[in-house]
């Protein structure tokens, strides 16, 4: 039991630190795409581990502990699906909205892939 409690405190601390790092990334990064990657990865990990830590702590503290743990696990699963999905859709939408990425060497792999696909389709048509 005491091991679970220390693990929970560790997870909560890690989660809060990663949430802070995600916010710092959003604050400091130069353009939208880098901000998205800072916000998504760091804040997904932070929120997941913080909620899991609180769930473990509730499992130890409250007398019927398992409902608390199950509900927090459901929230963790939803966060793990939802946050990367929305960030992906947002990055794609911003790219289609013609937002220029910040970079010194203009390498656009997404456009190249699109061009290659079009070429292949033309060759197939021939």
């Amino acid at each position, binding site marked *: 039991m005491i091991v679970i409690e220390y693990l929970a405190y560790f997870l909560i601390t890690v989660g809060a630190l990663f949430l802070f790092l995600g916010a710092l990334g959003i604050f400091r990064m130069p353009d939208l795409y880098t901000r998205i990657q800072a916000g998504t990865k760091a804040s997904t990990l932070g929120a997941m581990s913080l909620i899991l830590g609180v769930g473990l702590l509730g499992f130890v503290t409250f007398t019927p502990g398992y409902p608390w743990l199950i509900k927090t696990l459901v929230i963790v699963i*939803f966060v793990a*699906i*939802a946050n990367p*999905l929305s960030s*992906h*859709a947002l990055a*794609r939408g911003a790219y289609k909205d013609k937002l220029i990425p910040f970079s010194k060497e203009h390498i656009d792999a997404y456009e190249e892939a699109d061009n290659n696909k079009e070429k292949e389709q033309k060759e197939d048509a021939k």
Partner: protein
Amino acid sequence: MKKLLIFALLLFIGFEILTVLADVPFGEDRMNVSKFYLEKSPAELKVANVVTAIVVNFRGFDTLGEVTVLFLAAAGIGSILYRRRSVHTGLNPKRTSTEASSIVQAGAKVLFPLILLLGAYVFVHGHLTPGGGFQGGAIIATGFLLKLISYRKFSVKHSTVTWVESLAGIVFVVLGLLGIVYGGTFLENFLPAGELNSLISGGVIGIIYVAVGFKVGSELTGVLDTLLNISQDEETQ
């Protein structure tokens, strides 16, 4: 002259309001109605969530009015936007101009049943946990919206929406009328109350909240589908 008249009128109204307010006692406990609700809803109705007991049972007639207002709003939106939609002769109306990316589609496929389950959980447990029919219906409509904006071919049948909505409304009204028959007043709780904090408790409250959830969910789904179906090239004409 006019300004003087207005000033005199304002002075009179202010004097009247002050004399009325002077009769209100200060510092006494006057909240008799809320005390009645707080005592009666766990003791007699066996409902853990007092807000649900007030919304569905003590003020159930108001809830019927709210549902009717929502129905009128949905009907208004439908009647304004329906003519534009019927211009399209094709079977598949032009809702989205491009398909969503496959990641969003896969995520929508995974999350759609989970969101529907969550909405059903919220309105079935309306008398135990926070939330109820309105919130559950909104969650279900959001789930349908996720599917609608992800897939081009997914569409909601308006006849099904209308049937579900009408049936839910009929269930609400019939339960209220049965209350008149068995208990004497509209929406009287005539079913056995059950045990506090269990799923089957509170008599008609749970059934009414399920009906409200279906009604709100189908109405909002119909509104969102109607709003999405206006095509863009038609707007430019």
